[in-house]
């Protein structure tokens, strides 16, 4: 008998709009020493599924049916006190975003030893000793100093290690990890995955690993379960599923992963007009104590008309600050930015407004960057009106509808509001808004990282088409090397505020010179 045996798990949500079926008849087993990967796009029910196992979903609105037998106990029907003795003691959980999943008001040492004290009544001194040991085990150096830190005082990677330590301290038999590396940089992700793998083998525990990222699942899982809209579409040994997917949905997921070089039809035959945008010796710093925080140090680069430059680096490397300085959302401390040989750094408010017509930004999170109180029509019409590109009501109407059509939005959606759309549709709205003023430069800050792979593929194609058609130059910021390889002509690698390597995409990826570029490439999972 398996350690965990889930059969016919069905989860409905009773909402005001009626019953929504989130998980439909899902069955799986997990044994000691193996990792079950659950993969699917957002809304496919992966997280709901695992939260339901631990009865962490509020009921109502959720209605849960089925069986989930863990070592002889049905988790779904056991008494609350029985369940509490399993939670945190025999089943540990790791959540997606360690920043929000850790209590900000409590020192991390206290949080880690809490399950020990709760389930085993471990005396404080011993609990402290065990906490130090486990912090060491998950790779936190100087654990004595970290015990008394608060979550916000640690880096993202460290916080996730704390989360893992907290889940493992009671030596559980089953570990449920819900997107544990999604919020992390690639190099940190690689470390955390290696750590989980090693811990699992050493302790011979069962693990359920949820992710939307196929590379991650491929790396860590022994078996994989593919979910689509709450239904199980495929289940099997990991290698087998990835090598020969049976279901169409699995195939489409695998196909959607950006692979290989930039398609030749988007590549320029002729050398492009250089120095369309040039940045010379740019530095940006933010006030901080005791010394100002230098976010960008002495960066110089230039982009040709119609060229796509990929800007790559880990969080905090200064790529977003640099991008925002181009549209003067952040001011340069030193250096100069020129667009078509005109300096942007010395413009006054009015001139800047005019100049911004040529440069538009697309932001990472289409959920946060669109005004929730404006309709799609108003969002796209605003820049047109602002820059006087549509003077009559009729021409405005025509232009907005044409733009919506161009980015693949249906005309009858014009008067709906952002919350009525999916992530991919919202990013299309953001793109329509950006291209409305016919810009010559688009700065796209992680435009696809909040999106599912299939949507991501569509948005990338849209961006490439638009840039190609209108000779728009683009600075494409991403942490995902596969995506950058697919869209960019050249890549600039940033580390700690500096550009450490800059070169043609294929040359740079096949033959990296700088040690940091090599580290990034090594951490890549594909």
């Amino acid at each position, binding site marked *: 008998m398996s350690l965990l045996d889930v059969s016919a798990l069905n989860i409905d949500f009773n909402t005001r709009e009626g019953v929504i079926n989130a998980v439909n008849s899902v069955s799986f087993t997990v044994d000691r020493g193996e990792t079950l990967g659950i993969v699917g796009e957002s809304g496919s029910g992966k997280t709901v599924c695992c939260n339901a196992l631990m009865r*962490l979903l509020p009921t109502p609105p959720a209605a849960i049916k089925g069986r989930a037998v863990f070592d002889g106990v049905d988790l779904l029907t056991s008494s609350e006190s029985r369940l509490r*003795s399993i939670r945190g003691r025999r089943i540990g959980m790791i959540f997606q975003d360690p920043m929000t999943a850790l*209590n*900000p008001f409590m020192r991390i040492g206290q949080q880690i030893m809490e399950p020990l004290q709760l389930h085993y009544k471990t005396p404080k001194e011993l609990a402290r000793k065990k906490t130090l040991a486990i912090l060491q085990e998950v790779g936190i150096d100087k654990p004595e100093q970290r015990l008394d830190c608060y979550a*916000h005082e640690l880096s993202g990677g460290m916080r996730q290690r704390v989360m893992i330590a907290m889940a493992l301290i009671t030596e559980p038999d089953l570990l449920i990890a819900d997107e544990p590396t999604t919020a992390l940089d690639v190099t940190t992700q690689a470390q955390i995955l290696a750590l989980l793998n090693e811990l699992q083998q050493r302790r011979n525990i069962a693990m359920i690993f949820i992710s939307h990222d196929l590379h991650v699942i491929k790396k860590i899982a022994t078996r994989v379960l593919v979910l689509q809209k709450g239904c199980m579409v495929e289940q099997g040994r990991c290698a087998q599923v990835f090598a020969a997917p049976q279901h169409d949905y699995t195939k489409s997921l695998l196909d959607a992963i950006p692979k290989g070089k930039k398609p030749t039809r988007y590549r320029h035959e002729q050398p492009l007009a250089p120095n369309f945008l040039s940045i010379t010796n740019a530095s940006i710093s933010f006030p901080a104590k005791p010394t100002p925080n230098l976010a960008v140090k002495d960066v110089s680069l230039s982009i040709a008309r119609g060229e796509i430059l990929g800007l790559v680096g880990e969080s905090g490397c200064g790529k977003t600050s640099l991008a925002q300085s181009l549209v003067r959302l952040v001011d340069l401390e030193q250096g100069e930015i020129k667009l078509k040989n005109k300096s942007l750094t010395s413009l006054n408010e009015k001139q800047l407004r005019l100049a911004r017509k040529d440069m538009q930004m697309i932001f990472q999170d289409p959920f946060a960057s669109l005004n929730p109180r404006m309709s799609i029509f108003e969002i796209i019409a605003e820049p047109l009106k602002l820059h006087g590109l549509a003077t009559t009501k009729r021409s405005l109407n025509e232009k907005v509808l044409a733009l919506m059509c161009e980015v693949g939005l249906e005309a009858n959606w014009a008067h709906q509001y952002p919350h009525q759309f999916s992530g991919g549709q919202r990013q299309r709205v953001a793109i329509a808004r950006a291209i409305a003023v016919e810009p010559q430069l688009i700065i796209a800050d992680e435009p696809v990282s909040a999106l599912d792979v299939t949507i991501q593929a569509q948005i990338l194609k849209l961006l490439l088409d638009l840039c190609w058609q209108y000779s728009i130059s683009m600075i494409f910021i991403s942490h995902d090397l596969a995506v950058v390889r697919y869209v960019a002509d050249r890549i600039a690698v940033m580390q700690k505020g500096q550009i450490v390597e800059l070169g043609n995409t294929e040359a740079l990826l096949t033959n990296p010179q700088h040690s940091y570029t090599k580290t990034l490439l090594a951490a890549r999972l594909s």
Partner: protein
Amino acid sequence: MLKFFAARLFQAIPVLFVVITATFFLVHSAPGGPFDAEKTLPAEVLDNLNARYNLDDPLYKQYLSYMGNLVQGDFGPSFRYSNRSVTEMILTGLPITFELALYAMLIALIIGVSAGIVASIKPNTAQDYIPMSLAMAGICMPSFLMGPLLVLIFGISLDWLPVSGWGYAPGDKILPAITLGTGYAAYIARLTRGGMIEVLGQDYIRTAKAKGLPTPTIIYRHALRGGLAPVLAFLGPAFAGLLAGSFVVETIFQIPGLGRFYVQAAFNRDYTMILGTTILLSTLIVVFNILSDILTVWLNPRLTLKD
């Protein structure tokens, strides 16, 4: 922290200056004067009185001399009670009002926080609606209704507690404190509920549940500190409000506190007394707001004091 406190107090000086100046000219421009009574005084007596208190000087001169005295810590003599200074009267009234406010605050916190927590555990159920409706009733019920009602029930019908006074009979402080505290208890209940519901929806509460913690532990160890943040922010202004707003309660229960002086001074056009109490109350409001800010920062490790 001391530096922060001093800096914030220093920033409050212009505010206090504006309050004092505005109050000074407002009270002087109000019709009537401190020596108007039902029986009109003979003209020469009035002239003498006005001369003694410098009320015959031009207004700007009076203002300058008042401000001059104030800087030296002198609030001036009371115009109405000829032998007593404003400082003296404030010092007799303030401790009583302060004590009343303190008890009222304690009652408000105990009732408010517990009702708020109970309501937040199961929002939008009877467990939420009942305490919250009571809270709404508490907010709506003015103290001039609440006070007599309590007196009628506990003082007269049941004869459990004295109906008035302050420190004369055992238990005579209970009813005024409850009367003054109820309205604030209701606000605190609503703030607690809101804060707790927000915190209970956070991811780290889910983490605590996944650890196997029982609900009471989750509430007091993981949720309360964050959930009470709005209450903490409200405490400073609330305490200042209790001090300033105790007039009705003091009148109902015959308590010789500051609130009564304040309102009587306004009726009597006792200029120095009005100004004295106004300055005192606005200073207290400023100080309690600063204390409230410090407390908020102290309880939230993510915040630091910046001046």
